[in-house]
């Protein structure tokens, strides 16, 4: 990637870190970046040779599953400083995203989290319900949360999840301390870890100080019982005594470098009117539900497959096609869940079972 393009992307992220948007500037940079990647990232090049549609003149987005079968990177593996992998049971088919440097990832992650998670306080005591980087060195979430410690963590921040299990006593103690000292905390973790906590905490309830917040991310993937988002929200409110607007979902994926957060926390934390819950899309990201037949954006409010164009994905491919069902809502998007396997329940074997062999 040309140094000037890189610099202009950095400048745009910095300029839009306050939550503002400049779609024309973003789109111009995305087009330029995608063109460069089309000639430097071999799987994308091959993909584009076959996929000749150009929706509204844009290069089509690379499906996320390609990261499971091919190295999607503009640099040689010798230059990797980090390789993040999707969760899964078989290493062979886990998606991987290689990075030659993480500075831009950090810049985007920090700016988005500052805006959406910590708009009101420079630092907060963080309690993390996810593995640390030593336990999960290939998890982009663990990496990001470790950076959160540096950027946003106050004294007493800690991991309350270790060796794939909840540190029950550590969590309870930290929450009691927070209540006793009237010190708000941020609980950050995976959805399934929150379910484990829900099961482990039994009848214990907390009334955490105002300003406390929860960020949960990801699905359940068979690691805990599944709970519908609305029910999860109710459970978390009741368990921790945190008002609903202060409980948000993070939408991130290994194949991306930027994250999307629900809007309510920022609004509530800054004393603004709380509007409909949706994902805030940072100014350096374009998130559009598309019609998979035409690859064009669906009409406002209709359900399509979420395409994300992320300017921070400089070392791989910035245009990513997910399998997430989504619709736009006001200035954001609402993700409705992952599209199910195409094969109907019947006697046909599921694709993942084939792959699992």
């Amino acid at each position, binding site marked *: 990637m040309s140094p000037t393009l890189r610099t202009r992307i950095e400048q745009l992220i910095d300029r839009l870190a306050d939550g503002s948007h400049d779609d024309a500037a973003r789109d111009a940079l995305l087009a330029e970046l995608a063109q460069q990647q089309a000639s430097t990232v071999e799987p994308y090049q091959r*993909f584009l040779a076959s996929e000749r549609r150009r929706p509204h003149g844009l290069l089509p987005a690379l499906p996320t*599953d390609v990261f499971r079968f091919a190295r999607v990177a503009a640099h040689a593996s010798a230059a990797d400083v980090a390789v993040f992998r999707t969760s899964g049971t078989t290493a062979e088919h886990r998606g991987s995203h290689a990075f030659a440097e993480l500075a831009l990832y950090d810049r985007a992650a920090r700016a988005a989290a500052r805006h959406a998670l910590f708009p009101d306080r420079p630092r907060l005591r963080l309690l993390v319900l996810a593995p640390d980087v030593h336990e999960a060195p290939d998890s982009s979430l663990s990496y990001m949360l470790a950076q959160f410690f540096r950027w946003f963590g106050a004294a007493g921040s800690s991991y309350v999840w270790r060796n794939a299990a909840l540190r029950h006593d550590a969590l309870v103690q930290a929450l009691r301390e927070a209540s006793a000292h009237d010190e708000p905390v941020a609980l950050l973790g995976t959805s399934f870890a929150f379910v484990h906590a829900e099961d482990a905490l039994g009848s214990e309830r907390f009334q955490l100080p105002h300003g406390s917040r929860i960020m949960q991310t990801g699905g359940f993937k068979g690691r805990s019982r599944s709970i519908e988002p609305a029910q999860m929200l109710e459970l978390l409110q009741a368990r921790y005594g945190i008002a609903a607007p202060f409980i948000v979902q993070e939408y991130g994926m290994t194949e991306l470098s930027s994250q999307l957060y629900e809007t309510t926390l920022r609004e509530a934390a800054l004393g603004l009117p709380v509007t409909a819950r949706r994902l805030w899309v940072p100014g350096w990201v374009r998130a559009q539900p598309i019609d998979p037949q035409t690859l064009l954006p669906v009409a406002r409010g209709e359900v399509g497959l979420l395409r994300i164009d992320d300017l921070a994905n400089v070392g791989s491919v910035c245009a990513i096609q997910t399998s997430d069902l989504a619709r736009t809502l006001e200035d954001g998007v609402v993700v409705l869940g992952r599209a199910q396997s195409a094969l109907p329940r*019947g006697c046909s074997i599921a694709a993942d079972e084939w792959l699992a062999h």
Partner: protein
Amino acid sequence: MLAPSANPHEILALARKLRAGAAELRALGVERIVSALCDAAQQLRGTGALATITRQKLHADTGLHPAMIEWGLCTTLASVEPSVLMELAAPLWNARVHKPVPAELIAVVLAGNVFTACVRGLFLPLLTGAPVIAKTAARDPALALALERALHAADPSVARHLAVLAFDRDDNASLQAFVGQAQVVSVYGSDAAVEAIASEAPQARLLAHGHGISAAYVGPQSLETPDALRDAAARLALDVAAYDQLGCLSPHLVWVHTASLAQAESFARALCDHGLEQLQSLLPRGKLELDAQAAELQWRGIAAASGTLYTGSAHAVSVETGPARTSPGFRNLSVRLCTNLPHFARALTPFATHLKAIGVAGSAELRTELRAELARQHGSEAPKPHVCRLGEMQTPGFDAPADGRPALYGLTR
């Protein structure tokens, strides 16, 4: 027939009533049963009100194109021939020694991926002289219900020994009532469904028709000339297009016997540009839900990024050398290379327990050789897939073996 909202008590009462009438059904005799079954099939092939409504419902329930519904109905119902049924049933009914004893009640759980699967699913047990209680798939109950009605019109005395009903898959009380009286339970569906039902019917013999996958093989002679190649591609196209590739007899991968990538690509092009493209005008692909479109988009993306992808108006064919992967169905298929028959059989080994059918482009000798090779490599315990000619994977005869076993296997006591 019971309404779909039948409660467990009603289901139990029905099951008991059916079981109590077993002797009555047997007393009717095989000729009468065969005649009734064939008449019912004939009705649904026609243009009467029931046949017409059934076609409309099938289209609405399955999303398949009307032409595909027609093709599926015609090819399947045409296989219900009196001579075939009589030949199949005769050894049971006419045996002088060790005469098999029909079950007093057979419970059949139907799957929802291929709408015509219920024809054999319902008729084979009846052919043994056993009353049948059947649970339809929630996704497409139309044909099973239509068969029941057609049978009633053909011969009410036979039809009263068949009951088709529906209840929610999570309704355990209904499931217990449904299988509790049966001596044999025949389950079409996922491995998980088979397991769940087995645990509710410890008294019964379980005939599991679980997860399945099918593949194809194109022998070297079929690649030798452009005509042979095109013929094999056309035949395979039908196997792929049938039921929009959603059945367990649908091939997801085809191995071509060549070391030449260019030759594999020629075959893939012929399959895409001629075979499947032609079928798109004759048997158009049905409607894809958004979920299916998402899966297709991802599958094609991988194929394009890591192999070669040919796309047609409603289908795609890839040539891939990486890990074998199934397609999402809906006429998406991978072409892979193999250097000989043992190589092909070896490539299938990880999936041996799930293999349902293998279509072969080549001679009868080649198919025989393949069966032997599969037995050698997969062991005698592994299920024997149905090895047939390309173009015939989706149209097994009414009397064809299933899961490597004779059609009536396990249905008698």
